């Protein structure tokens, strides 16, 4: 069997970009850090809080997300929303994901 550590490293490599795509898709409807973490978890995208929070800032810096502080409630929260640029990237990444899925499908269909 695979060693746990090796599996964990490769799973992390494989999932790295999927979290970005999932965030860009979910944040078409604005949301804040913890709620997004919760949503990602419920929808089957396992990600750690200490990965997600820095990632959100990076995506914002790259202009893929825009943000607003909501101070109407008792606890001020930073809401992120996918920008036009982010939506375009999500579109491109989704297409790539689909073509990869097709490619893998063909690979597995070809029995050696």
């Amino acid at each position, binding site marked *: 069997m695979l060693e746990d550590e090796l599996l964990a490293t490769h799973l992390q490599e494989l999932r790295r970009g999927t979290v970005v795509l999932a965030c860009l898709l979910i944040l078409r409807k604005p949301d*804040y850090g*913890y709620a997004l*973490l*919760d949503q990602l978890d419920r929808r089957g995208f396992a990600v750690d809080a200490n990965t997600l*929070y820095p990632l959100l*800032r990076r995506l914002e810096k790259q202009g893929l997300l825009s943000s607003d502080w909501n101070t109407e409630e008792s606890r001020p929260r*930073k809401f992120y929303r996918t920008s036009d640029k982010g939506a375009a990237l999500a579109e491109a990444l989704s297409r790539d994901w689909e073509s990869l899925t097709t490619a893998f499908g063909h690979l597995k269909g070809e029995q050696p």
Partner: protein
Amino acid sequence: MTSAPSGSLTDRYIQAVLTGLPARQRPEIERELRASIADAVEDRAGSGEPAADAEAAVLTGLGDPARLAAGYADGPRHLIGPALYSGYTRLLTALLVTAVPAVAVAVAGARAVQGATLSGVLGEALGAALTTGVHIALWTTVLFAVIERAAAPGRGARRERPWTPAALPDPPSRRLRYGELTSVTVATVLLCALILLSPMLTTERTPGGDPIGPLSPWLWETGVVYVFVALVVADLGYAFAKYHARWSVPLAVAGTVADVAPPVTLIWLVANGKALNPAFVQAAGWSPDVPRWVGIGLVVISVITVLNAVVGGIARARNR
């Protein structure tokens, strides 16, 4: 801001994260992180967990604050990155295995000539070797750390010209240039060490036992010796720049100026009789002709160096 009773744990956690971040990022990250932690704690406490346990669990989930801070940071989180690492280790090894024994042997030889005891000779040689090694390690590391940071914004600029296989350097010539760079570095370090140590590493002494350096004390009184060493080190810096950066007019001009500055300074020093120490010449019992020939020799070497720099600069401009 947090509603948890033991808010201090969260405060300490956030403080630990912020310490690892640049000041301008701190206020916003603090505000957001505080809200996120409070949300998570509230969520757990809402499902019946005691508030203190919830807080501890949330912070445990966030993990080591230093790693979280590293995630937020923009700049490189390493001193010397993978692109420079092999060059760094190669240069450091080359310098350590050549300069350290050379300095040790030179110091031991000088002390032995002065008639020191065996333990004195060994002690001084070991001390000088250790000092040289520490200096080499420190300055090589500083140099590569600076290149690492200076090159980071330049990487984007270098990408402007798309890479083609034609840009590949010829492997032997690049290796040759690397070898050349290493030997220039070793020579520079040795030269600077010899110049700076020369007042101690002399074979002559006053009747009172004080050492008489071969180089003019005027150089030290006026600080000119440090200027000269700085020029030589700056020239080494340009040798590195030439190796790592593409040819460009400002770099070529600066490089040629850096190549020419030390020999021109040397010619000026010799012409004004500021190079050799007259007391040393007298103590060594040299005839007046010897310093004259030493001076002529230094001037000839300097002129050759200047010509070499100018001709080499023109050749590089043509072949770029």
